[in-house]
């Protein structure tokens, strides 16, 4: 039942526009997160920030396989998922700063961005906390026959939470259109996944009869190809899927996690950054195939850079919510 797809089958050629689009989205995430790091360092951002840098191909490859009305659920490391599903950077930054203009009026913050207009059911600060929500969204898609698919993003740390297995069992029993996307970035907070994960990860999906694949999470074309397959299958009523993406977070668990040598080696970080950067991998591919040129890519980067600067500007200058709002939205 499980297959390993290290590169997309050569026959699933992805259109150039799509590749450019994916490049652009990955670049947006990268530059968004760099601004977040900056905001945090300048002490403008309250709370913690868990950056998605290095993992961009996962969110983008998966979300490109989805429709706007499809659902996603996200994690504490969720900015990339939100952006990939179509959220606007300015309202995201505003949320990160706790401002009224944010997606959640400042009530949610970095770990709880939600956006009904793009089907984003919300980031979640409980590890595996959204597995039920995603599975439930898939349940209602099937019940209401609206053809939507739900994607549940989670880190490999979530494999430790029993509720994941309860949900996978239900999803398979009821043939729900949900895709479980496991982002294995090798570490939970400060512990290598081999110390927390017995057996083989894919076997945990197999155990419930769930279709599963593993993919190079730094190759957005591969992620897109695998995700498309599982999403199409789910949409056709054939049941859930499980996609394991091998990836890496470049920075610390959160921005403040600076001294990391006690849990991972500098040269490991260097290896991923230089050899397996998802943006570079896609850029190099397009250049090699003559699908774009260096200056076009540079233009993309420049345009996004100014977009992000403007978005930050917007957020920094936005007002906080009025204190009286504190007890609004408790009940609908």
């Amino acid at each position, binding site marked *: 039942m499980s297959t390993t797809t290290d590169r997309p089958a050569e026959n699933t050629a992805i259109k150039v526009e799509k590749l450019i689009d994916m490049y652009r989205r990955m670049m947006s995430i990268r530059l968004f997160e760099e601004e977040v790091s900056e905001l945090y360092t300048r002490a403008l951002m309250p709370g913690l920030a868990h950056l998605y840098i290095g993992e961009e191909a996962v969110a983008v490859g998966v979300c490109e396989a989805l429709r706007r009305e499809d659902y996603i659920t996200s994690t504490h490391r969720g900015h990339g998922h939100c952006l990939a599903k179509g959220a606007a950077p300015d309202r995201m930054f505003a949320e990160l700063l706790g401002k009224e203009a944010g997606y959640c009026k400042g009530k949610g913050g970095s770990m709880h961005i*939600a956006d009904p207009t793009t089907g984003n059911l919300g980031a979640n600060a409980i590890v595996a906390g959204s597995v*039920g929500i995603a599975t439930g*969204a*898939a349940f209602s898609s099937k019940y209401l026959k*609206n053809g939507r698919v739900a994607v549940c993003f989670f880190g490999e740390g979530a494999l430790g939470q029993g509720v994941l297995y309860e*949900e996978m069992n*239900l999803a398979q029993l009821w043939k729900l259109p949900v895709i479980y996307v496991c982002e294995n970035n090798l570490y939970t907070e400060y512990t290598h996944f081999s110390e927390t994960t017995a057996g083989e990860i894919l076997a945990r999906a197999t155990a419930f009869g769930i279709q599963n694949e593993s993919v190079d999470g730094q190759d957005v074309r591969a992620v897109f190809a695998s995700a498309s397959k599982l999403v199409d299958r789910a949409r056709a009523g054939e049941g859930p899927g499980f996609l394991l993406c091998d990836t890496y977070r470049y920075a610390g668990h959160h921005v403040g996690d600076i001294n990391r040598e006690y849990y991972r080696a500098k040269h490991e970080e260097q290896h991923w950054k230089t050899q397996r950067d998802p943006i570079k991998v896609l850029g190099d591919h397009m250049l090699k195939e003559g699908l774009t040129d260096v200056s076009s890519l540079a233009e993309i980067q420049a345009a996004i850079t100014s977009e992000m600067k403007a978005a930050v500007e917007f957020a920094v200058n936005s007002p906080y919510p009025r204190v009286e709002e504190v007890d609004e*939205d408790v*009940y*609908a």
Partner: protein
Amino acid sequence: MPEANRELTFAQAVREALAEEMRRDSTICIFGEDVAEAGTPFKVLSGLVEEFGTGRVIDTPISEAGFTGVAVGAAMTGMRPIVDIMFGDFLTLVMDQMVNQAAKVHYMSGGEWKVPMVMRTTLGATRRSAAQHSQSLHAWFSHVPGLKVVLPSTPYDAKGLLKTAIRDENPVIFFEDKMMHHKLKGHVPSEEYTIPFGVADIKREGTDITLVGTSSMVQVALGAADLLKEIGISAEVIDPRTTWPLDEKTLIESASKTSRAIVIDEGYGRYGVTAEIAAVIAQGAFYNLDKPVHRMGAMHVPIPFSPPLEDATVPTEQTVFEAARKMCG
């Protein structure tokens, strides 16, 4: 049967509410263990699967967290799921789904998403079911903003409150006393009605002492009121019906009027419902109370199996009567 005599058991009233609402709204479905053909071990749902099919009355694996999570997600995306947690003791397994997810989704999303779901579950001891099948854990949920907590005490209230719960846009947790399901009968009109949350019901008027009872303890309070009447003490019995929202006004007014109050709830006495209600009354009726508010809850022990021990753990008509007599003495 003439309308005025229309009597249903507590279980029938619950079932009728569910059936009527499910007919009205096709987005309502029920998740739970053995809810379909078996109609739950308490036989509360018997007949529903025959009318609504297994697509809407859905047997689940023994995965309380799992199917509660599904309900949360389904509620966010256009449905109105009802979840059945067989014994209230199993609520320990759904705390994350209810407290960190269902209760907070609306607020955390700045009001963007909502979670219109109902969790039906049970409370109450004296069924000889021992420590893991006898707890009354509603205080935990009353403590959590974002949830509403309902404790019906009669068939009439059960039907009207359950309909309100189903139509509410928020996660509501609805506690049924297991012992009432088939033992308690009462009038339930055939025409449609609902009962608003946050409105206490004066189950019996009186002048000398206020007995605040919840769920299973309402009948106990009424029984005690009968005994008190025999010795010339007039007890007012108040049922808050929902612990959140809580009708503080009615509680305070009654206690101010009678100048004495006993609060009786089958949850543990310490850090439970009796504490909140007693504190509310003690504060709100401060200048009118003749005696300190007295609290009666389950004894602070895991519920024992042995019948004589178990019987000693919960307030009874007799113990409430004694306490009230002492206060009025």
